[in-house]
C-alpha cells in the first residue's frame, strides 16, 4: 500500500546533512506499526506556582488568533536570521534552498491542519479535499490568505508538462526586504513558501516536488513562481476519480 505523506523526497536530502531537526522527518519505517515506546512518566510537579497559572495549550481557543497579525518587520528580521544561519551551514544554493524548503514544510503541516479546522470544525460532517484542482485553488486563496493575508496572483498550468503547475506571486512578502547578491542570483528565498505548499499538498495526499524560482518582470521585480511537479501517482489517481 502506498503511503502518500511519507516524506520520501526529504529523507534523502537530510541523510547527509547535520540538520538537528532532521529526526522529525525521518520516517521510522523500521518500527512496527503498533509498538509504542514505553513512555517515561513526565513529572508535572516541577513547575512553580507562577507557571501553573499560565494557561495550558489545551485550554486555549484555536480561533483566538484567527485574525491576529504578525509584525512584518519582526518577521523580516527573524527570517533574515534564518537565512543567514542556514547559509553558514550549507555547501551551495541547492542545499540552501532545500533547507529553507524543509523549514517551510514544518510550517505547512500546521497551517493546513489549523486552516481546515477553522473552516470545517463547526460543520457536522467535516470534509477534506480529495481532488487536485480544488486543492490547488484552496492553496492559491486560503493558504495564501492564512499565511500572507491575501490570495496569490495567479495559477498556471504548464503547457509542456502535464504534471507541472505554477502559483505566481507578484510581490512575495517574505522577499520584500531581501536583495539577493549577484553571485547567488539563482537563489530564491521563497523556497520557504515552496516548503509550505509542499507540506499542504503532501498532507492532502498529493505528493509533489515544489520549488521556487524568481521570474522578474518590468512591473514586478520580485515576481516569484512556485513550481509544483506532481508525482505520477497523483495523475493516475486523478484519472481514476474522473
Amino acid at each position, binding site marked *: *500500500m*502506498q*503511503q*502518500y*505523506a*511519507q*516524506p520520501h523526497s526529504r529523507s534523502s536530502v537530510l541523510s547527509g546533512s547535520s540538520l538537528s531537526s532532521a*529526526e*522529525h*522527518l*525521518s*520516517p*521510522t*519505517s523500521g*518500527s512496527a*506499526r*503498533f*509498538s*509504542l*515506546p514505553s*513512555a*517515561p512518566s*513526565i513529572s*508535572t510537579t516541577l513547575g512553580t506556582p507562577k507557571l501553573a497559572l499560565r494557561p*495550558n*495549550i*489545551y485550554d*486555549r481557543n*484555536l480561533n483566538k488568533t484567527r485574525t491576529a497579525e504578525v509584525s512584518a518587520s519582526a518577521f523580516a528580521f527573524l527570517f533574515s536570521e534564518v537565512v543567514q544561519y542556514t547559509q553558514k551551514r550549507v555547501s551551495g544554493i541547492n542545499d540552501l534552498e532545500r533547507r529553507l524548503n524543509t523549514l517551510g514544510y*514544518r510550517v505547512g*503541516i*500546521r497551517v*493546513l*491542519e*489549523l486552516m*481546515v*479546522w477553522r473552516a*470545517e*470544525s463547526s460543520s*457536522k*460532517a*467535516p*470534509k*477534506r*479535499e*480529495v481532488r487536485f484542482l480544488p486543492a490547488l485553488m484552496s492553496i492559491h486563496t486560503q493558504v495564501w490568505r492564512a499565511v500572507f493575508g491575501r490570495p496569490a496572483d495567479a495559477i498556471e498550468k504548464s503547457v509542456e508538462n502535464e504534471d507541472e503547475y505554477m502559483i505566481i506571486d507578484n510581490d512575495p512578502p517574505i522577499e520584500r526586504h531581501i536583495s539577493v547578491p549577484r553571485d547567488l542570483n539563482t537563489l530564491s528565498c521563497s523556497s520557504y513558501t515552496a516548503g509550505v505548499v509542499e507540506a499542504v499538498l*503532501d*498532507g*492532502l*495526499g498529493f505528493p509533489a516536488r515544489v520549488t521556487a524560482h524568481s521570474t522578474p518582470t518590468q512591473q514586478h521585480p520580485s515576481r516569484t513562481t512556485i513550481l509544483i511537479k506532481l508525482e505520477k501517482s497523483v495523475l493516475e*489517481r486523478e484519472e481514476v*476519480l474522473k
Partner: protein
Amino acid sequence: MSHHLFLLSPSDTPIYSLTHYTSKPTQTTSYPLSSNLPTWSTSAFAGTLTALSGASSATQSHHVQGGSTKMGGGQDRHVIQMIANASLDMIEEVMRKESAMYLKSVDKFNEWTVSAFVTPGNMKFILLHETKNDEGMRSFFHEVWELYLKTMLNPFHTAHTPIRSTVFDTRVRASAKKYL
C-alpha cells in the same frame, strides 16, 4: 465492553493509543469459524488462532490475571492491534475517494467494527468498537481532532513523536467517558 483508540501518523507510526472500558455488559455471540476449529492446545499460536476466529472461551484461562476486565477471545491486546493495523488498508482505499473526514464503519472483524477519522494532514484516528453509537463517536473524534491539533501546533512536536502529555491523555479519557 471496551473501545480502542489509535492515533497513527501519516507514515503509520503509532503516536497514541487508549483503551476505554465501559460498564455496559457485553453480549456474547459465537462465530461459526470458532466452532469448526480443532483444539490446538499444544500449539504456540493456539491463543492467537482462537482469538482471531472469534472464540471467547478458549483463551480465557491464559489471561485470568487480567482481573476485573474481561480478557481472552477477541479482547487480546495483540489481536486488537492487528485488527486496527489491518483496517489501514481499507481506510486508505476509502479516503482516496471519500472526502468526509469521519469514515463510519470502514472495516469489520468478528465482533469489532472499525471506524476512523482522517485529518486533512493525513493523521488517522482509528477506533475499534462493538456497538453502534454514531453520534457519540462523531463527537468523540471531533474532540480528539481538536486536542491533537493543539498538540501538533506546538513547534517542538513532530509528526512521529508519541504524544506523552498527561493533559492530552486526561482530556481524551474524559471525552471517551462522555461520548462512548
